[in-house]
């Protein structure tokens, strides 16, 4: 019967077109590199890649490890790398020094809960330091001087009624802090996971939750790119932001999968990751907390002029 045959042909043609449209793309995905530090904060990026959120946006993401600071920002500025992950203070300092950077997505945020955060000021268990006010005149270790470390410690001291300027800061890498604390080479330290859990299991006590004290739901890090790249490849940046937002949303609600992926790109064992406190991964910028970070940076002398948050957090 001819009518049925044409009908079937039309259906077949329609199905074939549908299959072709949803099948393999004719063009290759865009290759991008993201500079990260091997810490739990960047787990959403790894999880998002594994779940295919980036492939969905036609992005072939490669993560490159760096130690932090200059090694994350410099390659992005020079065009060697497309994106990077860095703490907000470093980005603000770079911006006030003339490097044009643009944030693409929020990175990681404090849990905002006193008593349970991924970073804190700790002291040896038998130390006379009881609260942040006792830190006046004491030596506190931070991982980078003139950065988020001393800024947030001073915020804690101020909140406890003390004078932040009276605290003596020394620079020490996070992995060296537990041993330095145990040997009494420093009197207190600002420390993050996994060393926070390691130190507390060795008897150290928490003096203050400085990231919580500094601002509510502090946005501590962002994913960023150079303004030049953002202007020239606005489409790729838009797709990266979309994939990143999806990854962050998934990560914040599937922390068990996060705990499974962290051991794949770090040396944190499965046993240890179960004990660590994870950061929060909101999908929107913490604008208010970023403003507080910028204001404190100017007040504490991290920067000499006011950072432009509007240009940064597009």
């Amino acid at each position, binding site marked *: 019967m001819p009518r049925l045959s044409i009908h079937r042909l039309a259906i077949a043609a329609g199905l074939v077109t549908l299959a072709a449209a949803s099948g393999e793309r004719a063009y290759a995905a865009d290759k991008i*590199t993201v500079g990260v*530090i*091997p*810490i739990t904060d960047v787990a959403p990026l790894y999880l998002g890649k594994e779940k295919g959120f980036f492939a969905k946006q036609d992005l072939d993401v490669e993560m*490159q*490890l*760096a*130690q932090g600071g*200059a*090694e994350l920002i*410099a*390659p992005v*500025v*020079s065009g*060697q*790398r497309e994106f990077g992950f860095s703490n907000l203070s470093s980005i603000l300092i770079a911006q006030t020094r003339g490097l044009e950077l643009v944030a693409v997505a929020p990175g990681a945020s404090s849990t905002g809960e006193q008593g349970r955060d991924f970073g804190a000021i700790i002291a040896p268990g038998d130390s006379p330091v009881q609260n942040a006010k006792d830190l006046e005149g004491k030596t506190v270790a931070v991982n980078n001087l003139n950065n988020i470390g001393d800024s947030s410690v001073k915020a804690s001291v101020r909140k406890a009624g003390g004078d932040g300027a009276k605290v003596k800061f020394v620079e020490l*890498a*996070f*992995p060296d802090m*537990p*041993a330095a604390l*145990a*040997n009494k080479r420093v009197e207190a330290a600002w420390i993050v996971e*996994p*060393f926070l859990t*390691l130190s507390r299991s*060795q008897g150290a006590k928490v003096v203050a939750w400085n990231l919580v004290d500094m601002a509510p739901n502090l946005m501590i890090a962002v994913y960023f790119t150079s303004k030049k790249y953002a202007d020239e490849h606005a489409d790729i940046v838009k797709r990266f932001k979309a994939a990143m937002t999806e990854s962050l949303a998934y990560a914040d609600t599937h922390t068990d999968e996060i705990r499974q992926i962290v051991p794949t790109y*770090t*040396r*944190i*064992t499965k046993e*240890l990751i179960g004990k660590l406190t994870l950061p929060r991964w909101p999908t929107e910028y913490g604008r208010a907390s970023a403003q507080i970070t910028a204001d404190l940076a100017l007040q504490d002398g991290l920067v000499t002029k006011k950072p432009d948050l509007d240009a940064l957090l597009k």
Partner: protein
Amino acid sequence: MDAAQRTSSTRAGWAGAGPLVQGFCGLIGIAALLEAAPRVGLVSPLYFPPLSTLIAVLAAEIQHGLFWTALGFTLQSWALGLGISVLAGTAIGIAVGSSSIVLATTRSTIEFLRPIPSVALIPLVTLLFGTTLRSNLVLVVYAAFWQVLIQVLYGVQDVDPVARETARSYRFGRWAQIRYVTWPTTLPYLMTGVRLAAAVALILTITAELVIGTPGLGKEIFVAQTSGAYAVMYAYVIVTGIIGVAVNVLARALERLAMPWHPSLRADVPA
């Protein structure tokens, strides 16, 4: 009776043992110290695990492909960097050293550039090349090149003037002069340069991987450090030490192969 014969046969006890045995005993001593110190409490066993733990961790590590990939990257970087340094150092060294005018002109430049530590170039290199093999190579070649160059310059200047004049009398061309007069004199110096450059190249490769994050053993050390996995970190540090020893043994073997005629490598002739 010369020195070589004296040490092995006539002295009794500890001093009479050969250098190989003495070295081995020294190694055992260090190993015992590394095992005992954390156990006794001299250092905290959490942050510096005893040697037996490290060896166990290392034995577990070498069963994973990750270890061998990292090792491959490090050795590749080291070999390439060393090769470029030796070739460039030898060629430039012979060219510069053969002409007293060029030597005099470049001497101060060499003396200025040589002490600059390669690690000071890391920010520049990260900016230009990122975390690629090229970053490693720039750092490795910059450090190892000078070792070879300085030695070759000394070697070229050490050429016996009588031999040089004799070659001129026999109308040796430039190339023949290099091949038959300069090269045999320079070779022992070059071998020393290669041995020093090999060690320096290894140091810089690991450093570059540690600081920049280029794939390799240094990067594994860095990731282990950032993760608080101290045992894994020290296990990889031990591996780099073992590679260093292997590199030295290789360099010495190369020396014996290339210059069997040199007095320092011949047991019968006093040096």
